[in-house]
């Protein structure tokens, strides 16, 4: 059992798709989870179906969705970094690493979950993962938390090999679906199809909802 888990992602909803079951397994076991979310996904293309948001109202809407997702996940410590969506890779790297480093020192997690830099598709994902790795490396060897990284770029398994951490989170599938649904502005267009496919025991959807996979990052 972990002592404290620190989850670091750039966008509200990053914690929903590939990680929600794992987070739930920790919070339900009584392990505190801190979630650092770097942006509010201000530049998202999805504006709800029917349209409920515009470019200027989206941040507040997504902030509320993020709060609700955290409530459903049992996350009591949410830290918003206040960066802007799409700009993480252009931010002052040293300043971002220091901010993450300070948080790691304060939270003192036994496990960090983030994106695998270079294999996480969205430039914000890669930049977040890279900043986390550099921050962890500032700690003396032997005092560094384990890092479980999420990769999903095309062909990533050919380079990284099979993920070494594979969790069966099927007991949390229903709750995970609710977390995805909580990000209404982003998922309203797909949630009904997802639920239907899940109920019909569609193999891909069942796999997506019940298995979560990570690579232990070679720190």
């Amino acid at each position, binding site marked *: 059992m972990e002592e404290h888990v620190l989850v670091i992602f750039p966008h509200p909803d990053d914690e929903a798709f590939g990680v929600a079951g794992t987070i739930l397994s920790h919070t339900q076991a009584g392990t505190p989870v801190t979630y650092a979310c770097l942006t509010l996904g201000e530049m*998202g293309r999805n504006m709800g*179906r029917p349209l409920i948001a515009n*470019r200027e109202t989206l941040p507040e809407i997504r902030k509320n969705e993020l709060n609700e997702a955290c409530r459903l996940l049992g996350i009591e410590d949410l830290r918003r970094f206040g960066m802007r969506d799409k700009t993480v890779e252009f931010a002052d790297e040293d300043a971002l690493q220091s901010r993450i480093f300070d948080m790691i020192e304060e939270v003192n997690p036994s496990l960090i979950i983030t994106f695998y830099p270079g294999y996480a598709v969205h430039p*914000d994902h890669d930049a977040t993962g890279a900043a986390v790795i550099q921050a962890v490396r500032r700690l003396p060897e032997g005092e560094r938390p384990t890092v479980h990284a999420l990769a999903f*770029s095309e062909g990533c398994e050919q380079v990284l090999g099979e993920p070494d951490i594979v969790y069966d989170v099927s007991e949390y599938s229903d709750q995970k679906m609710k977390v995805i649904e909580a990000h209404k502005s982003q998922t309203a*267009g797909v949630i009904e199809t997802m639920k239907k496919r899940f109920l019909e025991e569609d193999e891909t959807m069942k796999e997506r909802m019940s298995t979560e996979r990570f690579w232990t990052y070679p720190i």
Partner: protein
Amino acid sequence: MKPIDRQFVQENLTELAGESLYIHLETTNGAYASHKDQSFFSAGTFIRNVQLTFLHGKITGKGPYRMGLETEQGWLYAEGLTDWEKDEEDRLLFAGHDAEGKLAIALELSKKPFPK
């Protein structure tokens, strides 16, 4: 937002001619476009809080609409606009949404800076 009413938009636009404005202009096809379809060439841009004063502005087309703002030194051009609103802060917000309701372009004009 609501579908663009060209005449009504034109009236609101004309009112802003000569004013010092902050602009948010953006096009996007989404960060996952090339991930989902490797042959897709992804391009996009955004610029936020650039200041501009236009001499005259016009909205044209039958929908989706085009907009051109002529300034002393140049132009601002946008196409693919479908929806708009004047929000409670009196900002003119325009957007173009595709068939799935996803934002493809945004053009916003405000007398005060937008939050960073």
